[in-house]
């Protein structure tokens, strides 16, 4: 177990170094960074001033050392737009985004697991029809369209929920549903097919032969095995949600990282974009690590390997 986690930890650290290298060159491979960071009609003097201020005149190796040294201390430079340290700006937005992602994930799992398990355990039943229906809808309905429809129906017409902003528990419902609908569809499909597969396993027959009733067989034996597959996709989906939240946060004016990416790109605020990219990558790496831990907790074959 320790060896397993230790090796995953080393892999994650190496991955983060790779991310830093890529984000460093990302800025420099998209043309002249000083030009990118200044308005299109900026005077040559202003561009030159920017180049000097950002240190783009120094040799690449000096720039790289400076960047990595700063990154190690969490310093990604000043945001051009907000005139404040980029990473601390990102950190201010993190709670809102995590809140929204968790709510969306909770919504998706809450509906996907029972639908998938019951659908998969009784193919052809009403549960199965529902499961397959939601699986298809979740995969095909674009989330920005769904977000707009939710606003039209539940905020404007019915007035049940606020249409934008982050104020109180009601305000998170619509963005969470809009963001969670795609993963909901994916989870339902996955849980359903995994359940179909697991319920035919010999050890499920063994459980029935012990006289265990269906409900307990599904909960104790089937779902535990299905959750191995589920955990892997939940980890990946968490990462995607960060990306998906760009539209959703913008539509609902949710003060999270997604909306900040949108603003930073439009303002050509490269240090901020860089900080967000590194943070998001770090977030995904941590999620992967947690996924690996979850695997080990669920599956003794991983826990006791080597």
């Amino acid at each position, binding site marked *: 177990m320790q060896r397993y986690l230790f090796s995953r930890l080393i892999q994650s650290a190496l991955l983060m170094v790779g991310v830093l290298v890529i984000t460093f060159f990302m800025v420099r491979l998209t043309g002249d960074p000083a030009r990118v960071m200044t308005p299109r009609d900026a005077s040559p003097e202003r561009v030159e001033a920017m180049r000097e201020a950002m240190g783009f005149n120094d040799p690449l190796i000096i720039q790289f050392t400076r960047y990595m040294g700063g990154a190690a201390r969490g310093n990604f430079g000043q945001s051009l737009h907000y005139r404040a340290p980029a990473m601390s700006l990102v950190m201010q937005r993190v709670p809102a985004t995590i809140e929204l992602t968790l709510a969306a994930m909770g919504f998706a799992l809450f509906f996907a697991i029972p639908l998938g398990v019951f659908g998969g355990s009784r193919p052809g039943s009403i549960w199965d029809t529902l499961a397959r229906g939601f699986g298809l809808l979740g995969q095909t309905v674009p989330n920005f369209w769904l977000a707009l429809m939710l606003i039209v129906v539940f905020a404007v017409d019915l007035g049940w929920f606020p249409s934008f902003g982050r104020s109180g528990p009601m305000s998170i419902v619509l963005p969470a549903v809009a963001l969670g609908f795609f993963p909901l569809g994916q989870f339902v499909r996955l849980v359903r097919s995994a359940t179909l597969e697991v319920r035919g396993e010999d050890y499920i027959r063994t*459980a029935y032969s012990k006289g265990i009733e269906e409900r307990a067989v599904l909960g104790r034996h089937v779902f535990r095995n299905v959750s191995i597959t589920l955990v892997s996709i939940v980890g990946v989906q968490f990462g995607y949600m960060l990306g998906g939240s760009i539209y959703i946060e913008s539509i609902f004016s949710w003060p999270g990282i997604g909306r900040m990416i949108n603003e930073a790109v439009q303002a050509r605020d490269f240090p901020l974009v860089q900080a967000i990219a590194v943070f998001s990558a770090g977030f995904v790496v941590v999620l992967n690590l947690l996924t690996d831990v979850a695997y080990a907790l669920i599956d003794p074959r991983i826990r006791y390997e080597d």
Partner: protein
Amino acid sequence: MHGETVLRVRDLSVQFDSIDGTVHAVNNVSFDLKRGETLGIVGESGSGKSVSMMSLVRLIAEPPGKITSGSAMFITSDGEVDLLSLSRRQLSRLRGDRIGFIFQDPMSSLNPLMSVGAQIAESVRKHTQLQRAAAKTRAIELLEHVGIPGAKQRYDNYPHQFSGGMRQRVMIAIAISCNPDILIADEPTTALDVTVQAQIADLTNRLCKELSISVIWISHDLGVVAGLADQLMVMYGGTVVEYGEVEQVYAHPRHPYTIGLLGALPKLSKTEERLVNIAGAPPSLFSPPTQCPFADRCPWVFERCESERPALYDVGGEGRAGVVRSDDATDGRGSSDGWVDSHLTACFYDLERNRRRDADEPVAVRPGALAHEEQG
């Protein structure tokens, strides 16, 4: 207690619906199982031996499976009950408690995510009033009972930390955890090494004799069954073709299929280059059972075999030949406790031969069959 019938199955038929049509997997199977005895069931893959036993306790997939006829009286000191008429809830109370199971592949029969101890304790807690700690003690006791060294430490181990033979011991522990009346062992040694096979067979046999559990031992290994079973049932094409005491059937097989099977056993005394086989292929189970299932491969086939399905006839002794053994036609001579003392076979040729023995009248058979008969 010994000698009483604990399970009386009559006329059991099971069908499966498939895209290509209805599969007649089990047709009118009847047998008796006596308390404390072992009934061996042999037959090739697809002969219906597993399906017929699993359908008794509804461990087949329904749908597509469907039990179309029959009864299965389960007789204990608490009274008689027809297993096939029970609800799923009532059945699940019997499974694991009164009827235990061991399956073919120990590598996949245990849940990989649960400790073996927990899997034994789960069954114990389901059927007894024992609390968590007591169930654990009982599970450790059972692990010791099936010969797992260091049972206390092994309780928390997971299936992947056990070898195939050890896992099968765990399965046995689960099966006998509630001192069942019946143990259904579905080819429990097929997936194991030969040396381990013998250990598992001996262990099962010893424990069941100790606890006077009746065993239904499904196998396609005639050697294993010969050493374990009291009664033997030979299945072919979803039907019982021969049934009797194991020594009787091995010494004097009466059905052409059994004769072929025993003839196909390699002999240590002879160094044959090729293994003997039964010509032809197993019957299609799609067609409804209107003829003898073995007719296409039988060297002694004659007209009647292809127009009518033979019932089980008693061939136990000269005087008893030709008696149809079903409950409404025991002819006053069979004991009310069923067929256990009989040697039955479902073959018209054997019947005809017996009938005409006195009259010295030959049965018309396919040309070339007589040479075969001399061997048999």
